[in-house]
């Protein structure tokens, strides 16, 4: 269509609903105690409430994995599909129904391994949606197999003597894709930062890619241990056009001013160092969005029949 076709049928209904956090609550989350996903779910519910998104006009699309249970725990529309294939489904939803709020929840296996092709292309399409990579560096649901983001030498059930390869860097990879328009990184154990990042992602018009560092207490408990215990490991990228939370200054003293418009700076900062960098790496709303490029006026059935009849004339005997 993506014609502008939003229906008028419910336009006349005066909608005086206000939504509380509870209104977005779906089934009780069944992640392990201590799993970082709980905190992400809370931040997302807070965002939905803050933005007063109508539950029926909000769609969460996920793949397969621990994090992909996400839609079940929300009272919005959800599509819990195939491993690695959340992005194509979400693209189809947003392409045809641009008026819906679309969120995608993926794990590191989903996004960076089996669905890596879709990740690159969804970034390039720049369809207006929020894509969350809940990165715990491991396959959790299937009980501890190496993922592309598992740190070097970290053991798993499939690579018990440690991984052989350096971990893939999702932020760097996304920043390398043509037409990438929003790339941010945050951590679930810093709820204020997580929330602000989600909010910035939601308000960005285009494909907002957010990598959320997420602790898995069962399989990768030690990976983010240092970052959690020593705030100095974290370096906050701050800017008026990015994220700046003065309240966090007390704890997170390492700061670097980075203008999200600066793609070269973003790519430099995305390189792996001892520091874990959080904030908005890059943001550019001027980039074309696929659903806008493909937007067409709608036609009634009669018009389409008339046009098709003209088309048949060309083939008439």
């Amino acid at each position, binding site marked *: 269509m993506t014609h502008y076709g939003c*229906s*008028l*049928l419910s*336009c*006349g209904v*005066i909608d005086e609903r206000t939504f509380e956090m509870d209104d977005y609550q779906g089934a009780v989350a069944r992640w392990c105690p201590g799993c970082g996903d709980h905190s992400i779910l809370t931040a997302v519910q807070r965002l939905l409430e803050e933005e007063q998104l109508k539950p029926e006009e909000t769609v969460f699309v996920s793949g397969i994995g621990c994090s992909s249970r996400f839609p079940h725990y929300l009272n919005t529309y959800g599509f819990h599909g195939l491993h690695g294939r959340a992005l194509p489904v979400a693209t189809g939803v947003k392409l045809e129904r641009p008026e819906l709020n679309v969120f995608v929840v993926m794990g590191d296996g989903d996004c960076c391994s089996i669905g890596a092709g879709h990740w690159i292309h969804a970034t390039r399409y720049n369809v207006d949606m929020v894509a969350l990579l809940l990165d715990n560096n491991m396959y959790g649901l299937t009980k501890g197999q190496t993922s592309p983001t598992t740190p070097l030498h970290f053991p798993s059930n499939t690579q018990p003597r440690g991984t052989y390869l350096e971990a893939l860097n999702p932020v760097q990879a996304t920043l390398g894709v043509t037409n990438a328009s929003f790339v941010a990184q945050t951590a679930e154990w810093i709820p204020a930062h997580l929330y602000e990042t989600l909010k910035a992602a939601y308000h960005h018009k285009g494909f907002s890619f957010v990598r959320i560092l997420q602790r898995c207490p069962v399989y990768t408990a030690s990976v983010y241990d240092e970052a959690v215990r020593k705030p100095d490991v974290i370096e906050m990228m701050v800017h008026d056009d990015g994220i700046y939370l003065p309240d966090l200054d007390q704890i997170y003293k390492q700061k670097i001013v980075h203008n999200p418009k600066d793609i070269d700076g973003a790519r430099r900062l995305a390189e792996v160092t001892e520091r874990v960098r959080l904030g908005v790496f890059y943001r550019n709303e001027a980039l074309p969005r696929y659903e806008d490029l493909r937007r067409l*006026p*709608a036609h*009634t*059935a009669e018009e389409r029949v008339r046009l098709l009849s003209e088309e048949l004339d060309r083939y008439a005997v």
Partner: protein
Amino acid sequence: MPSDPRIELALRAVAAPIDRYRSAVVTTVEEVRGYLASHRSPTESGDGNTAARLGAFAAGRIDYARFATLLTEAPDDPERLRKVEKAFDILRVIAAGDEDLFKIKVKGGARLGAAVAKRLAEMGRGFAAARVAGMATAGSLNSGSAEELLAPMAFERWSAAERRLAPPLVVELEGADLHAGDLVEFMDGNVKILLLVNGESTPAPLAPLITPGTFVLQTGDDTGLGRFAEHEGPAVAALVPEDAARFIHDPARGANLWDRIEIYHAPEKEPRRSVGGRSVSQQKQELQQLLAMGKAPVEAAASVADAAPVTAVAPSGPVSNQVDKLAAWLLSQADLENIG
């Protein structure tokens, strides 16, 4: 006069908003068509309906009577269905309407506000029809009369969502009849009004409409019309005679009034005679207000004071407050007697 290049220019400028509006109507038409097809009683729709809906490939292969029992949802009450059919017809007429639907001409001496209100109310029949169909699909349409629901619906009765989907209008009028105050009540939602001004006009007739959320444009050619059409929010533009001011007020360009206003042509000649009942001094004031709004903060404050030595305007407090006050003052000075 379809060959009038200004009308062509204007219709081109509102082509995208027309598409957006019409697409919404079309989408609704098709939804209602689907509702009607699946809520007619099987006896009324008959095998013919099932056959038609299944297409020729099914001929001889599918038993229509059996298939029909699967297609039909609970049949709707015939009286309610008739209402929906009426709503369907209204929506179809609007969907099929050509660009004349989006064009009006105000007769010399007639009220701009009244003409716009009348056309929007007519277009409002579409929203009213959609409400009826919406109630039917939601199961809340009673079987009583829906006549009034299907009648023209004045803009004041449009909901916020409907105002966001408002159709654009191209309005041709005499400069003398251009009283900006007439349009204030329509500056809401996503309403787009593009005025084609004939004859003489005051130098800055649209200046009084400048408020923080409203896109306002005076132009002599297509400059700014793209931004006018794309603006998310109410927007008004006028293709004005050559000696009028040309400027853009674009709410997207910043929080400060002077950032949002771009004046790229100020009239060289002073107004010399009254136009449409506005005296020469009123016209001068209108122009000076515009020029003042476009200037940097210090100067702006000074010249506003010059132009209007009204104590209420003395700018103080945060900038946004100043802007709002200024806007309010401008509105109060505008010719509002025609609002009705």
